[in-house]
Structure formats: C-alpha cells, structure tokens
C-alpha cells in the first residue's frame, strides 16, 4: 500500500510524541486523525482525571492501556468546608482494583479528595512492583495500617505524601515497617498524622535515604529530635518541622541552629506548630536561601514574624497568619521582591471583633512592593473599592485572586457601597486571571464585569452575592474558559441555569448550594442534557416529596462520559431520564 507523503512510521511519531507532556497538547494530538489517536493512546503514560465521575475505570483502561501515572480527583472543592456530607462518594477502591489488574507497571497514584480504604492501600502495595509515588491529598478513610502495608511492600517507593488527609492514626508503628534495606525515599509528608511515629525508626529511615529531599514531620515530633534528623539528611530541600517548642535551654537552641546551618540546600520550611518565639532565630542561618515559608500554624506576633521574614530575600511563597498585620506586610513588601504567592489566614475566624491590625492596607502594600505577586489568598475584615482598584492596577499580572472578607455581604467600609467596582477592576486589569474568589457585598453588576472581562477565568467561587439570575447568566455566557463554578447562598435560579445548559458541557463542574434552583428545573436539566450528571443533594428526604418549585439544597452538575454514577448515597438523587421512574 502506498504511503502518503504525510505519514511517518509509527515509531517516529511515538518518539516525537514522547516530548509532548502537557495533557492539553496530548489531547490535541489525539484529535488530528485516527492513526494519531491510536499511536497517542498507546504511548500515553500519564493521565489526569479532574473528576473521577467524568469517566470510568473501564473507559480509561480501554483507551490508555499503558499508563504509568494516574491522578484522580473526587469530591467537589466545597467538601473542604464541610458542605459535602459524609458518604457522598469519591471512592478510590473501584479505580484501584481496576488499575491493579490493568497496569502492573503503574508507578504513580495521586488522589485528591477521595475516600481511600486500607484495603485499597493494600492492593496498591501488592499489585504494582515498580510503585514509586503515592500522594493522598485531602483524602480520608484509611488508617496507619494501610500505611504499614505500603511501607512494608513498596521497595521502590520514592514519595509518600499524605498532605491534609484525615488518617485514623492507630499507632506510629507503621513507619518501622520500611525494611532496613529500603533506601529510595525522596519525599515524605506525614504532617497530618496525630500520633507520634516511632522516632528511632524515623531517624534511621531518614539517615539511610541519601536522596531524601522533602521531609514534612507531624506535630508530635518534638523539637529536640529535629537536629538529629537534620544531621541525618543535610541534603534536604524542604522541611516541615514538628512542634516548635521545648524547654528553653541554650544547648537545645545551639544544637538546633547548628543543624539548620548544616542544611545548605534547604529552600522550603513549614510546620512550626506551637512556636516558642525565642527558638525562631535558630532558622535564621537558612533564611537567605528560602524560597518558600509556611508559617500558617505559627501563632507568634508580628515583631517575631517580621524579623524572620525580612531575612528571606529570596522568598517566593509565604503562607502566614494574620498576626503579621499591616506593618508586617509592609516590611514583607520591602524585603521580598521575588514574592509570587501570599496567603494570609485568619487567626480568629469566628471572633466578632478584629483581633489583629490587619486590613486591606497590608494587601495593598504587598501589591505595590512585590512586582511578581500573582497568587493571593487573603482573609480580612474590611475592604474598599479603592484598595481593590489599586491592587488591580499595581498587579495586572495577577493570576489567582481569592479574597475572603470574613463577614458575609460586607460593603466597602469607606463608602458603604457594594464592592462590584473593586472586583470589576481586578478582572478588567488582570487579563490573565485564572482563579477568582469573591466576597463582600456584591450585586449583579460584579458578574457583568466578570462575564465581560474574565475571559481567561477558569475557576470562580461565589458566596452570598448577586441579586438575580442575571448574575449567573453573565458568568455562564461570558466566561469563555470557565471550568469550575462553585456558588453558595446566592439568589440564582432556574432561568440562568436552563438558558445556559449547553455551557455546562464545556465545564468540569458546577456546584450550587442554598440557591434558588428548583427541583423541577433540575429534572429538566437532567433530561435535556444526557451528557451531564445532574445530582441533587437533599438530606431532608426525596426532593419529589416536595413541590417541584421547591429549591434543592445542593446541586452538583458535571459532564461525564460514564453515565449516572451507581454509588450514590441515600441523600443524592440523579436527574437523568429515568429519574422520574426511579424516585417514585
């Protein structure tokens, strides 16, 4: 058969494709023609599934038979704030079982907001001979027994990262299950564990793994054991301390300072629970090399924070409590010219009165002083349109902007007007803005701005905002790149949703809770759009026991090629074609 001038041998194409790693590009390649689709799918090694219910294990395995790395995300983002009831879903087990059979050479599993059982961990431990990376981010459902299975069996494990997961910590013994011959650990994050791990085992593990670059300890590791650990791993690049407090003894301090000074490659620090301020200077020797500093558990006051931060001239990422106050942020702005990401968390989120002198001014200072600032998460108690305007004009390079004014519906504190114009300025000037979280008093107008200017916006979080369906309509019709929209407590209802039903197929997901979407509209949406799963959550009973016009408690809509899911708990109803039959 004559080959056309345009065809290359498969091996050549495969080789070319191996240089293309981004998922988007891989996806584009696969759409060129049938043969490229075929070649691409056989040589795809890494897959990211942003919503585990958008596809199913059989579908994934059928298309990509030779994966080495799989990333799955389960629950919606608002699960982080207790808005998704227990038992909702996101079960990893079916995936892990299926992959155990299909991918004996699987090396990496990364899960986020999924329910993982000990059984699943045991399957992982026994099924993948070359298993290297396990990242469980904000997961739950497993115990330290599951971790023991991983430690005992995964000879080639490089990375074990349990960040922010909820682990039933039965005992710290599991760490001892890493055999003495095991030396390949590169990254260990156990910061979420409650109990003390076997410290001797930890020290031995750390000192026999020469490639260990990341070590994030949990709070239960006492400070006086830290120097030994550091001396066992002077090549560490990222360290999360345990509790940062101890009896104040000069020998403990000097031991610690010396150990830190020995870590010439240390770039990132975190941990710092229960900080005793007089121990902070022990880290001064490494400050000038730090690019990342997470002090969000450090309950120390502004002066101590300032002393520390002002020494970190290379800092790119700072997470800190609002104890830093406006003064501290001003110093930060003057000292850390390379800052790219700032997160300021509230020390007293439920207090009625401000407990610290942190206002919008702090953020304004940083926006003025740090030319590379592009990612912000800021909790505060007052904001003004003027400040937002200034921030927007200072930082048109902003890509992620999340502002949480603690009191819902707070207006501009100077003018008492809504903050529409301020956020409008943000979306107008920050043309590359990909993520935005709103707060404060907002009318439909802010959504008009967002729809008009937010052309690159991919994720939008809205709470207690807007006046009418028009607000939602602006966003759905205007934001061309919107992938994730999460809304709570807003007066958005049926009209905007149904008018923009087709838009929902271009997005990963839509979450609406405590809004005005009626059960009837959900049914219509589910029936009209077979490629969407329209799930209604209602803990007070079946939605059809109330009038069709009743608003649903929670609505979660996502595109899928896998049809309605089969693992829904009793409080979740799917609005597909058969829904009418199923419920009644």
């Amino acid at each position, binding site marked *: 058969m004559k080959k056309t001038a345009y065809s290359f041998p498969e091996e050549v194409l495969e080789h070319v494709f191996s240089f293309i790693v981004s998922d988007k590009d891989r996806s584009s390649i696969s759409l060129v023609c049938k043969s490229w689709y075929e070649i691409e799918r056989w040589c795809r090694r890494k897959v990211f599934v942003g919503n585990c219910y958008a596809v199913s294990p059989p579908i994934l395995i059928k298309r990509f038979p030779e994966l080495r790395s799989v990333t799955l995300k389960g629950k919606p983002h608002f699960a982080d704030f207790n808005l998704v009831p227990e038992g909702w879903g996101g079960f990893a087990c079916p995936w892990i079982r299926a992959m155990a059979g299909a991918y004996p050479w699987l090396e990496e599993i990364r899960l986020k907001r999924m329910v993982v059982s000990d059984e699943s961990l045991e399957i992982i431990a026994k099924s993948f001979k070359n298993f290297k990376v396990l990242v469980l981010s904000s997961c739950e459902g497993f115990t330290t027994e599951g971790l023991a299975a991983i430690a005992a069996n995964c000879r080639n494990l490089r990375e074990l990262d349990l960040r922010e997961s909820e682990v039933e910590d039965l005992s710290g013994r599991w760490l001892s299950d890493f055999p003495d011959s095991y030396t390949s650990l590169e990254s260990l994050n156990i910061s979420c564990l409650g109990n003390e791990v076997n410290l001797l085992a930890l020290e031995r593990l750390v000192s026999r793994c020469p490639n260990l670059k990341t070590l994030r300890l949990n709070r239960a590791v006492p400070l006086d054991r830290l120097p030994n650990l550091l001396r066992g791993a002077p090549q560490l690049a990222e360290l999360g301390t345990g509790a940062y407090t101890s009896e104040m003894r000069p020998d403990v301090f000097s031991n610690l300072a010396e150990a830190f000074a020995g870590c010439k490659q240390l770039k990132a620090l975190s941990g710092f*629970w229960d900080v005793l301020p007089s121990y902070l200077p022990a880290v001064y020797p490494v400050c000038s090399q730090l690019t990342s500093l997470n002090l969000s558990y450090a309950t120390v006051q502004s002066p101590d924070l300032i002393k520390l931060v002002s020494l970190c001239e290379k800092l790119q990422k700072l997470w800190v409590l609002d104890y830093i106050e406006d003064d501290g942020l001003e110093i930060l702005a003057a000292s850390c010219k390379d800052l790219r990401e700032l997160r300021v968390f509230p020390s007293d989120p439920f207090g009625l009165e401000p407990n610290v002198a942190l206002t919008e001014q702090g953020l304004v200072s940083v926006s003025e002083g740090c030319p590379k600032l592009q990612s912000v998460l800021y909790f505060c108690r007052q904001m003004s349109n003027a400040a937002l305007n200034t921030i927007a004009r200072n930082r048109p390079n902003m890509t992620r902007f999340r502002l949480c004014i603690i009191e819902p519906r707070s207006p501009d504190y100077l003018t008492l007007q809504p903050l529409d114009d301020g956020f409008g300025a943000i979306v107008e000037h920050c043309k590359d803005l990909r993520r935005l979280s709103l707060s404060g008093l907002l009318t439909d107008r802010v959504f008009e701005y967002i729809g008009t200017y937010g052309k690159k916006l991919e994720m939008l979080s809205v709470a207690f905002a807007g006046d009418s369906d028009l607000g939602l309509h602006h966003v759905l019709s205007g934001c061309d790149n919107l992938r994730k929209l999460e809304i709570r407590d807003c007066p958005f209802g049926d009209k905007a949703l149904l008018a923009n039903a087709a838009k929902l197929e271009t997005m990963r997901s839509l979450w609406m809770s405590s809004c005005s979407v009626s059960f009837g509209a959900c049914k219509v949406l589910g029936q009209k759009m077979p490629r969407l799963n329209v799930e209604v959550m209602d803990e007070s009973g079946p939605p059809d026991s109330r009038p069709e016009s009743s608003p649903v408690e929670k609505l979660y809509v996502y595109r899928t090629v896998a049809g309605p899911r089969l693992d829904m708990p009793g409080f979740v109803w799917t609005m597909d074609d058969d829904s009418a039959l199923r419920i009644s």
Partner: protein
Amino acid sequence: MENCSFEKVVGLNLEATELRLGLPGCADEHDQKHSSSCSYSSSSSSSSSLSGVVRTNKRSSPEESIDGGHEEEPKSSKKAMISQNSSNHDDDDQDKNVPPSKAQVVVGWPPIRSYRKNNGIQQQKKKGEEVIDGVGMYVKVSMAGAPYLRKIDLKVYNSYQELLMALENMFKCTFGEYSEREGYNGSEFSPTYEDKDGDWMLVGDVPWNMFISSCKRLRIVKGSEAKGLGCL
C-alpha cells in the same frame, strides 16, 4: 464501607442537621430556617441562607458542667451584635431578619479547612489546655435507626453542653437531664461513646477534658440500651 448502599431516607426530617455543624455555643432553633429569608424569594424552607451571621463570642459560652442546663445566650448581647453588623446588611434583609435573639450558624464559612480553625493564640490560651494535635478531632456519630453516619469535629466544642446541643440538632432528638446515677432521664435517646479502651460509656460520665482525649466514636442509643452503661 466504601460501597455501602443506603436506604433512601423518607420522612426523617434532617433538614437542619447540616447547618448545625461547626460553631459552638449557639442556641439553634429549627424554625429559623423557615423564617429567615433573603432578598430573593424562596418558596420553601430549605434555604440555609442568612442575611447576617451572628457568631457567638466564645468567651461567653456556657459553663462546662453538663448540669448547667441549656442556657440561652443573653438577648441583649445578641442585639448588640446585630446592630454592630447592621451596616453590613442590605436594607431589605433587615426587615426580614430573624429575631435578633437567635444565633445562626453558617456551615463552611469562613472558608477555611477544619484543621486551621483552632490556630489562634486566643483559642489556645482560652482552652487553657494543651492542644493535642493540629488537625481536627473527627469522630463518627451514629444513631440507632439512622441510615448513615455523621462526623463531627470534637475540637470545635468547649463543653458537654455545646456538644449535646449540636448532636440534638444533628439528629433531631433530645437528651433528657443528665445525672450521674440515672444517666439521661426523661428522654428517648442517650448519647454514648466508645473510649480508647473500647468501652462504651455514657457521655458526661467523665470530665470534659478526659472525654475529649479518649472519645473514639459516638453513638446515640435508645434509652433502654443506655441503662447498662456508665461509670460504676
């Protein structure tokens, strides 16, 4: 546990449950949801939206002893809080606001992860006790007859009173008066818990701090089941 099938819940009015998690010391009224409304119309009561978040001041939370009974927050302080915040509300909302004497709870606001909630110096000093770990202290709560488990974060509560109020709201039940000798008198349900040793105890039998550090899970049982429990 991952792939359990749940019975559909019919008739069990749990509509208030989700909203009652999180903030301690709040006196909750189920009717609030029906009467609270915002500037948009809602034909039913399942909206949880609130036009004003009245957070209780932790410093005035009820005393720790379970025998203290169910105190209501003093009405005057609530009114003061509302008027303080009144400039933050739409004018419309103020008229439709619930009576200021009721506290309201907003689940998931401010949007911070549970393990960050107890990080303030104030919280730590106020509790006067060592904060055991940096993460939440989640325990499962089950109830005889209820089809699925709930989970609560014990860290969020400062006293038996707060905890029991939260449980009562979550499961729409009431516990009677607690007494050491007779347990929960005058109620259909009693709260029990499993401690570190695997023993089932009646909630309230041990001092609060001891309870917090030993409670592994909670279970709400019918009155008769609770008779055999408790400290000897």
